[in-house]
């Protein structure tokens, strides 16, 4: 067991505890190891961000933690503890009592994620009627308030409308309202702003943050966009190829990032200070094949600091600073790193 896992074991009173979660898919081409040994914990009221490229396993992770994946052709090992209860061993019915009521999720594309032939009001009332046993009238009133809370005016009118009659931003607000309806303890937000206009993105993120604070809800924000997690999370997990490669409190991650992958992600964000027409930095190469991942460090084919050691030996998670772990042989600031900086013509020292 890694040092991270031992550390987790000692803690108690956590909201969510994930231990060595692995999710493998059986496909015609082989077994895809989408999530390959992830452990983390989430405290009450904490906001956690999970970042990584497309294909790194973050979406599968969030659904895996909730237990939303189908049974067929999916192998899930490891444990997920929600307030001391073990989610992984629960039956579907038991999980159904938790979903929506104590754990909620909002998804990426609100247009396709809302039922097109059901009125918004009915969809919103559904969790209330199922989990809280509200009558139709009661639920309606609660829904009106919910709609107001998420910033949708004229809730009475909206109640009887359909998804296609609302704008993208409004639909996402409806999704959020739906998730909040029963007052869950944790909200999973899976790329909530990716499908939205940039102008609306900030509003939605602020709304989510506000609601989390108001309702004392924990948040798990999954995204590929470092900019999104920067202002709205307390702690960030960086994922690559189904594994956690770095985890740190948000400010520390940005000020003292260790993983070259994190560094690369950070560098690829366009910066306001740079002159216009500056070429965007990208991370060359593609994510590894998850059916047969490489033996050593999974990022090494694309890492500018890679050495033979990286190819052969997989780095273990090491601790540096409070709650800051990373997995790399030649992290930012190491000798190897400094060597390469000189070759690349960059200043040494942190950004």
């Amino acid at each position: 067991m890694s040092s991270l896992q031992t550390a987790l074991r000692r803690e108690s009173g956590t909201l969510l505890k994930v231990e060595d979660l692995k999710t493998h898919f059986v496909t015609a081409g082989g077994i895809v190891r989408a999530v390959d040994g992830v452990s983390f914990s989430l405290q009450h009221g904490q906001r956690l961000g999970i970042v990584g490229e497309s294909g790194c396993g973050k979406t599968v992770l969030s659904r895996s933690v909730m237990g939303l994946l189908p049974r067929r052709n999916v192998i899930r090992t490891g444990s997920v503890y929600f307030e001391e209860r073990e989610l992984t061993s629960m039956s579907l019915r038991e999980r159904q009592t938790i979903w929506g009521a104590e754990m909620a999720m909002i998804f990426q594309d609100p247009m396709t994620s809302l039922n097109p032939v059901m009125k918004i009001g009915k969809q919103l009332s559904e969790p209330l009627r199922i989990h809280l046993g509200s009558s139709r009238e009661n639920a309606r009133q609660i829904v009106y308030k919910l709609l107001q809370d998420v910033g949708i005016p004229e809730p009475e009118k909206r109640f009887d409308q359909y998804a296609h009659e609302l704008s993208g931003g409004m639909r996402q607000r409806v999704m959020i309202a739906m998730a909040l309806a029963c007052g869950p303890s944790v909200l999973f937000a899976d790329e909530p702003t990716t499908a939205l206009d940039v102008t609306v993105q900030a509003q939605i993120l602020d709304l989510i943050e506000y609601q989390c604070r108001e309702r004392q809800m924990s948040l798990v924000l999954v995204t590929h966009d470092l900019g999104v997690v920067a202002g709205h999370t307390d702690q960030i997990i960086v994922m690559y190829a189904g594994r956690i490669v770095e985890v740190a409190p948000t400010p520390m991650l940005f000020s003292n990032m260790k993983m070259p992958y994190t560094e690369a992600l950070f560098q690829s964000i366009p910066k306001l200070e740079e002159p216009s027409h500056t070429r965007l930095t990208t991370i060359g190469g593609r994510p590894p094949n998850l059916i047969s991942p490489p033996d050593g460090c999974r990022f090494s084919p694309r890492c500018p600091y890679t050495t033979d050691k990286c190819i052969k030996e997989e780095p273990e998670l090491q601790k540096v600073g409070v709650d800051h772990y990373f997995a790399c042989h030649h992290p930012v600031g190491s000798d190897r790193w400094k060597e390469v900086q000189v070759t690349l013509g960059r200043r040494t020292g942190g950004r």
Partner: protein
Amino acid sequence: MRYFLQKFAQLILVVFAVTFTVSLALGAIPNSEERIIAAKGSGAINEEEKNKLLDSLNLREPTLVQYGYFVQDLVTLDWGVTLNGNQPIKSSISDGLKISVRLMVYAQLVALLIAIPAALLAAYRNGGLFDRFSTTVSFGFISTPNYVLATVLGLLLTVRWKIFPAISDDVGFFEAPWDHFLNFFLPTIVLALPLAATYLRLLRADLVNTLQSDFITTARAKGVSTSRILFGHALRPSLFSLVTAAAVNVGALVGGSVVVETAFNLNGLGRRTVLGIFASEFRLVQITVVVLALVYVVTNFLVDIVYGFLDPRVRAGRLG
């Protein structure tokens, strides 16, 4: 609203075209006069009666005038009598309609009752044992011509094991319910099974598609129970193909169940048409065909309206 008017206009147009074609067809049959006389039955018939008969059918008029009279007769329900036996055509058709409609309703109900739950189960456990089994079985039923099915079932249940009567009588439901059931059971089954197979296939395909949608995942994440997801969320958006097919079949079954009606000796509308053709009962055939076409066309029209209800996006004029 515009949608409704558009469809209604199409309806009217087709009705006109059908009636016109039917009216035209009569005029195009060579030797129609001789045949009519011959069908009138044995015994000499004098000139006067002959002329009266032919005049009543307006055969000697020019085409458009013929058509005009035809429409008039249709609308005023002045449908005349059969050549052989002087039966009022109206009652003949209404009797036939009663049987055919009954059969159609029974067959549709049974078919839907089988197909909908089966499709839900098959789609939910997509690729599972029940799914593959039902797909194979329904394929088999679709490939079986109904007369083959009627023959085989007839052989087993009527001839060999003598459960059901070979010749079905039109016994009213309220007169003798059990007899009614016995008489109508086999023809209904023979019609319903291939129907159910088609419906099953259509609904299952749409359901499988819908179940992969994002909004189903959302519903799951809300903690909605499995049965509620199937019936409440997945079923409605998946009904289109099924509803189209069922609607088409309302009209198709009423007129097209000729084979089953013949096999079980039920004098439905289809069978009467065939017999009418054999007996040169032109008027009867004409009107029957028009009635059948009307049933068909009106049903399709109503279906288009129902579409508007099922999918609000269609109503709004845009498709999602």
